């Protein structure tokens, strides 16, 4: 079982860290100086779904699987959970490639990358097989790591930011603002995480408010981070990949004491890895309910193997993957991270607490 604090931390930290690599670059490329509005649209829509899902999980003891099984029968529930497992694996593909490129840039000067990145699968297989208790406790331990490193990076970047670069606002065509929001929507799957936690969260007061507030806090951090990033790089922002590793570059002390920001980035990478593995953990959870096979280690191995094969096969195809996700992934997000959590309200059944 998770407690509300742990769910809130998961939403707070993993939402924030998963949007600090290529997201600012991508968004500034589409929406320019109005990137905050594009991000705001996504956060507003998903914030509302997060609230609805959080409210739902505070009102029910049932897991989403139980809700489906009670309404449509076990077979249908299993099929739907099979789709969810596929969805979680699907949405892990882009972050995995993103991580690979990020690791290449930040952790190594000049090396052939793939063999050096593959050991991450030892971690993914191991952590992927863990249960909700483990997910919650990892979030607990990540909190100080996240707070210290994020505060350090933002503090060292903010001094160099010229926020007037964001002005004048809303000069970009509205269509571009919305297409920016749509193209990056595949990063907003938090309601789906919450849906999977349903029935596994300890009862507490103000559950929905706490979870929604943590999402708002994450949104605030991401928006502030976007503002700092654009404030530092302005028109150069679309060519500055992995924003989180770049915002501290002009901090004056770095010339004297060296790349101390790297230690914060390395610490933050731990949180990023946990954010990445959360999707695999949920895919394993879904697979387990779908197949009835209880050996989480085997399922995690299978899920990670699929991802490893995709990573090896499309090693140099990150551009194509990015294009595909920007163009089409929103459909999956609408289905699984918006429609499914909202429809859970309709099927939740009557024996709620």
């Amino acid at each position, binding site marked *: 079982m998770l407690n509300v604090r742990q769910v809130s931390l998961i939403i707070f930290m993993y939402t924030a860290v998963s949007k600090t690599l290529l997201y600012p670059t991508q968004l500034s490329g589409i929406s320019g100086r109005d990137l905050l509005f594009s991000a705001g649209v996504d956060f507003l829509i998903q914030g509302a779904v997060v609230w609805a899902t959080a409210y739902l999980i505070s009102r029910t003891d049932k897991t989403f699987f139980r809700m489906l099984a009670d309404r449509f029968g076990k077979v249908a529930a299993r099929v739907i959970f099979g789709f969810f497992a596929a969805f979680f694996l699907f949405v892990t593909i882009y972050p995995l490639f993103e991580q690979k490129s990020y690791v290449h840039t930040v952790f*190594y*000067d000049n090396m052939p990358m793939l063999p050096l990145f593959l050991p*991450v699968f030892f971690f993914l297989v*191991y952590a992927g097989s863990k249960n909700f*208790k*483990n997910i919650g406790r990892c979030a*607990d331990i990540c909190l100080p790591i996240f707070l210290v490193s994020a505060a350090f990076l933002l503090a060292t970047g903010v001094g160099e930011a010229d926020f007037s670069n964001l002005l004048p606002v809303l000069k970009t065509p509205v269509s571009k603002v919305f297409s920016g929001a749509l193209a990056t929507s595949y990063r907003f799957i938090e309601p789906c995480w919450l849906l999977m936690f349903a029935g596994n969260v300890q009862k507490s007061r103000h559950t929905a408010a706490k979870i929604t507030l943590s999402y708002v806090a994450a949104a605030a951090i991401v928006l502030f981070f976007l503002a700092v990033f654009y404030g530092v790089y302005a028109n150069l922002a679309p060519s500055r990949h992995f924003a989180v590793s770049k915002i501290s570059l002009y901090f004056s002390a770095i010339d004297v004491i060296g790349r*101390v920001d790297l230690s914060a980035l390395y610490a933050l*990478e731990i949180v990023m890895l*946990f954010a990445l593995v959360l999707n695999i953990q949920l895919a394993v959870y879904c697979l387990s309910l779908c197949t009835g096979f209880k050996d989480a280690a085997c399922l995690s191995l299978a899920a990670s193997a699929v991802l490893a094969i995709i990573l090896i096969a499309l090693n140099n195809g990150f551009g194509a993957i990015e294009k595909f996700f920007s163009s089409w992934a929103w459909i999956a997000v609408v289905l699984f991270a918006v429609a499914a959590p909202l429809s859970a309200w309709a099927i939740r059944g009557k024996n709620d607490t």
Partner: protein
Amino acid sequence: MTELKDRIKSVKKILTSPDILTFEFSGADGGKFAVIYADGIVDKQLLGELVIKPLRERKGICGADGIKAALASPEVKDGKNIKQAVEEISDGNVALFADGEEKFFIIGLKAPPGRAVAEPPTQIAVHGPREGFTEDIKVNSGLVRKRIKTEKLQIKTLKTGEKSDTAVAMVYIEGVCPKGLPEKVQREIEQNKIDLIPDSSYISSFISKKPRSLFKRNGRAEKPDIFCAKICEGRVGLIVDGSPIAITVPYMIVEDFQAGEDYYSNSYRATILRALRFAAVLVGLYLPALYVAAQLFKAQLIPFRLLLKVTSAVQGLPLSPSIEMFLTLFVLEVLNEASIRMPKYVGLALSVVGALVLGDTAVKAGIISTPAIIIIAFSAICLYTVPELVETTTTLRWIFLIVAGSVGPFSVVALSAFLISYLVTEQSYGAPLLAPFAPIVKSDMYDSLLKANMYTLDKRPRSLKSNDKVRLKTNVER
């Protein structure tokens, strides 16, 4: 069979070793007696004064009750059979037989050779008590009783070891210790049958749910004040005969960052020291690995001016950075191991040889660089700030060094995430190993890396699930 000779014969038939001594003597009324005991572990002076002398001098001793009444020893119990007599004699007690009497007596006059109570070498205190446990279970139990006088204190003696029959005292406070925990620990001990228990570390393995894990599952205490404090928090303690190191369960890793002295000094100072220990362990673990990773894969990790120095120091070295670091660490471990095992004075010479010959000369010869020696030496010093974790941290340092040298800095991060993922759900008798950080237990945070004053620490640690939650009641407003 009440003939004295027969009784002696039946005991000697089982205990054939020559160090099992028999002393036959006559009482004032002419009655014949015999004491049988193991040489070297019985206090002979007390045997003479409390057993032999009264029986020889007192007249009118009549029957078994009369004999018992004549004995001046406070520790006398009735013997049941020859098997029990044999066990008690082996355990260091004395068996007293009287001619014509069916009944015999076991007299507790155990005095095994041992050292006096002294300050343990690994937990030296500037402030606070200096007593340390010895190898004698009775002395150790006494040191505990001296500090905890409540009638709720339970010291339950178990026997383990098929051949050694070692006594293990299980110490806990009824009402404070979680219900069922002592029974659970007892079951774990009794499930294992082994010949000999030479040290408490054997018991430590037995009661550990995962004995193959790199991370230990129980705490250790060499000082009775620390041991008693842990017992009062709701833990179960185990004192093993023959070992000066007591064990406590449940265990949380944060315990090892808490020194006994933290509780006797200013809480601000204690907090700084705890943070220092934590930082030192992180530095000791990661520094060699990150140095190698930086040299091989990411030079930017090293500040530019320092990098210039390092570059000039490593220029012309025949070994790769990872091999160089590996070799330096290997030398350090060998020196460490040898200096512990060697006689004191040879050890001193060894330090000189290690520092001057291996260190200075190797640098001058251009085999290893100065930064490598500095980093390994500093890492070793850092890890020894938390001596209780040294076994784990030194092993982890090797692992980090190997992965950093082969896969680079990302592997160090991935391995750290792996360790976190492993440790967060590990537990010791219901207490999470990483508590109070995972899961976060707010009230326990005040005595973790932070050390609050004693008025803030008015509750027992929640992670230990003690039945009695309050440990400090005060009417004074603060």
